């Protein structure tokens, strides 16, 4: 079974083959001698790669999480072939532009744009205060503000929708 894994933005292909009860692993086409043993049922694992030992922790769920090795943190997302096809189709439907989400929980201090306003790429759209710091949330693309999901003074969760930006129609 083939999996597509993104680790800190870098793409890998991992193939797992079960043969006579043994798991054969290949990463980006090269086979890897890897064993992963659960230590405490709480996220600690003993990992051996080609006789090199690592104390590893895994958190998150099995599709989206992070692996920590020797103090470095590797955020991962895993898709198998079917999930990959489904996700690609979903992305295609969304088109360009899209919804800007809060990357962290916080409070909306000021809205700097209105629905219908034209925005440039990197133009600040609102100010989000988190951990007592004011952060400008910028538009990822040039386009039109399609919808605003929050009000000034509103507390938002991480991942909450803030503003939806519509990309200008492609010129023929």
């Amino acid at each position, binding site marked *: *079974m083939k*999996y597509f*894994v993104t*680790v*800190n*933005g*870098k793409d*890998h292909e*991992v193939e*797992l083959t079960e043969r006579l009860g043994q*798991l054969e*692993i290949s*990463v*980006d086409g090269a086979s*890897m001698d*890897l064993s*992963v043993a*659960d230590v*405490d*049922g*709480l*996220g*600690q*694992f003993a*990992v051996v*790669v080609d006789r090199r030992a690592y*104390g590893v*922790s*895994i*958190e*998150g*769920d*099995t*599709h989206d*999480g992070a*692996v*920590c*090795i*020797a*103090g*470095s*943190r*590797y*955020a*991962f997302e*895993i898709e198998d072939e*079917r*999930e990959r096809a489904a996700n690609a189709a979903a992305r295609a439907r969304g088109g360009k532009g899209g919804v800007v989400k809060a*990357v*962290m*929980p*916080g409070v909306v*201090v000021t809205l700097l744009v209105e629905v219908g306003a034209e925005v440039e790429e990197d133009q600040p759209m609102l100010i989000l*205060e*988190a*951990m*007592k*710091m*004011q*952060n400008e949330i910028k538009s990822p693309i040039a386009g039109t503000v399609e919808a605003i999901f929050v009000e000034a003074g509103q507390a938002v969760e991480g991942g909450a929708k803030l503003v939806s930006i519509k990309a200008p129609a492609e010129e023929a």
Partner: protein
Amino acid sequence: MIKRLLIANRGEIALRVIRTAREMGIESVAIYSDPDRSALHTRFAELAYPLGGSTPAQSYLDVDKVLAAAEATGADAVHPGYGFLAENAGFAERVIAAGLTWVGPPPDAIRGMGDKIGSRQLMRAAGVPIVPGLAEPVADANAAVEAAKDIGYPICLKASAGGGGKGIRIVREESEMASAFTQASAEAQAAFGDGRMYPERYLDNPRHVEIQVMFDAHGNGVHFGERECSIQRRHQKLVEECPSPVITPELREQMGEAALQAGRAVGYQGAGTVEFLYSKGEFFFLEMNTRLQVEHPVTEMVTGVDLVREQLRVASGEPLGYDQSAISMHGWSIEVRINAEDPVAGFLPSTGTISNLRLPGGPWVRIDSALYRGMEVGLNYDPMLAKLIVWGPDRASAIARMTRALQELNVGGVSTGAPAALRVLSEAKFRSGDYDTHFLESLDMSEDVLGLSGVAAAVATVHRWQLARRSALAPTAGRREAWTNRARIQHTRYPLPSSSPGAEPGGNQ
């Protein structure tokens, strides 16, 4: 001597004070907000008193509640820690008026140093060198532009009641002034209830070097050398060391003398830190922090002095009992702050529940931590969760030891800045001591230093496969059709078990 000490704080610093108090035979009183009911400081103190409320304003910042707690628990002294009410002169006055011992400087000294503008005037009068700039707050952005013409760009806009990196903006040209002024002023208004701003010259390639001082009530004062705190981003420190790689014994003596002069000018008592900007052999007074600092452990490791113990002694009226010649520095110490933040995403705050925890150990490794499994990391409180401190006979061995300790550390459930600290320690410029306050911001944190990205991908995938197989082989599985099993193996999400708070009381250490 103090018999029962109320610690008007939370987190690792509350624990830090409790530990020394217990060693001295002083009982400690913890106060706690609703979310901190099972926090370590609440569990480690002899007495714990609930303040109620969940935000800082409803709990640790509520002067009336804190004083009521002191009265109810029969405390005879108050230690404010850092942050919260530590630099609130009004609180200090209330504590003293209630007949309690205040473990901190006199209220007038807090007030004198707390106003950044007033303190600069005081320091100029006392002959302590200061950075060129206006000593008065400016009315608005236009006035700031006018003032900047005399001072020269780049300009640093600062909140006159500020601290902790809030309400500070760097302005490199006139066109940026208006928006920077508005934002910084709003931030200052929100954080301190005072939106006044003042401009000063921004020094390029500056280093942040601070001197630890301690005064008793009998006119004696000593300094404990410097700390180097230049590894910071958005003016928040990440890595600190003692001593500084650039400070010579002669400079240390000059800066120490200037720091003592600064303290004497305001009639200082207790522990304090005088912050200087150091640039090319010159140093300028930045501000004085009239409290114990977050990074005080590096000084303790190198001088062998327990600063909290000294604070409690001099607050009780004891004389220091030694002079400057008794202070010596031995070896090298480094501290890394473990903050809930994501270095790969520009150090944005990270929240969650601590799901697993592995703390480092071994020789000369100290961990001052508030972490336990099941702890909720939210937005109500400071993102600093723990401090990792090491000592070594020289700088190179301290760096190697800190690297090793950081590799052992594992905090699951939130992102921490630890990988960024590891990255800093591996950089040639840091190892040679040639860095300034912009160093951290110049590094690309998304780089894979270990080159284990492929291994991480394989581990995550195998883990997913193992969980799927375990679930498929579970007793209920036999009742399903084979094709159902196959579908479930492929498409079910299996969250990792999250710990329940208090399930394993000893598990946090």
